[in-house]
């Protein structure tokens, strides 16, 4: 767990990279590890960020937005990945509806509050089981290149893709 890691938030650079790559529909349920990202999106009238009440509902909205011609991103804590398994299995992947998932990594390394430990451990294997490509967002690489990788993945496969966000990167 890396709450309070030093250094500036990369949230502004990440949001700029999202926009430069054409993402134009944003919804999610927040996490403390994503607070910089949520704050940036929610104070940007162009982003039109939807504060959803459940992560699977945010995925439903993203599905509708994609069908309507938008390029969607959904952010969530990794606890929300558990909530979202059926939406990902029987909506997003089944209909081949691309979406960028930005998922925080609570429970990383087993060092976090008890409710985050199991999901912190199984998050990556769960994504693998659902055949969802993923990579950990690195603070030391340009955000633009990492978002561009995700966009290529989701559009070439017609599938969701996940950027996993450890503590300290987008806070």
């Amino acid at each position, binding site marked *: 767990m890396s709450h309070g890691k030093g250094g500036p938030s990369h949230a502004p650079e990440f949001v700029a990279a999202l926009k430069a790559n054409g993402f134009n*529909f944003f*919804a999610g349920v927040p996490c403390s590890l994503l607070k910089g990202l949520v704050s940036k999106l929610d104070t940007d009238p162009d982003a*039109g960020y*939807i*504060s*959803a*009440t*459940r992560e*699977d*509902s*945010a*995925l*439903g*909205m*993203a*599905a*509708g*937005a*994609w*069908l*309507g*011609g*938008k390029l*969607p991103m959904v952010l969530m804590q990794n606890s929300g990945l558990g909530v979202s398994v*059926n*939406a990902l*299995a*029987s*909506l997003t992947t*089944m*209909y*081949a*509806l691309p979406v960028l998932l930005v998922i925080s990594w609570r429970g990383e390394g087993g060092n976090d509050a008890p409710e985050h430990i199991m999901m912190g451990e199984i998050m990556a294997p769960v994504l693998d089981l659902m055949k969802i490509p993923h990579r950990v967002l690195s603070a030391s690489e340009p955000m633009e290149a990492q978002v561009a990788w995700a966009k290529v993945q989701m559009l070439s496969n*017609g599938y969701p893709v996940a950027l996993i966000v450890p503590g300290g990167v987008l806070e």
Partner: protein
Amino acid sequence: MNKMEAIGTLMERVADDALIVCCNGMIGRELFTAKNRPANFYMIGSMGLGLSIGLGLAIAQPNKKVIVLDGDGNVLMGMNVLASVGSEQPKNLWHVVLDNQTHASTGGQRTISGNVHLEEVARAVGYKAAYRAHDAPSFGAALDKAFAESGPNMVLATVEGGTLKGIARVEPSPPELAERFAREAQR
């Protein structure tokens, strides 16, 4: 009124370019049987998420009329999304609910919509209007009124339970359904 009569009453009033997102379960199969069209999106899994798909679509396509055709089981499962609709206030979203107080596709087990009036929930979370109808004439009149107003609003019709004969299964593959619907949505 059975569900096919209710769906017929609705479809008589739906313009060609209106987009319909239909919930899973028997209602999707009944809509497919009554009037299959490319502008229908049949959500065959992900129970409870039809309204969220409709909300995302209504925001993405603000000049298109978006109708979510839902059932009581789906509304109860995804009740959180009613709050999102009340919060976002999409003017182009109409939520049509066929309420038979049962989970028809799993054998007719009861839901709790006999105890919880879903149109009252819609009103409470900020839909502009919500109507309850009990027969085809009152359902038709409520739809006429709702479609003449801006959304979001709900028209709920109580319908008979049980399954009807001659109901087909949705045929195209899910990616085909999505592709043809997206073409209509973005036209």
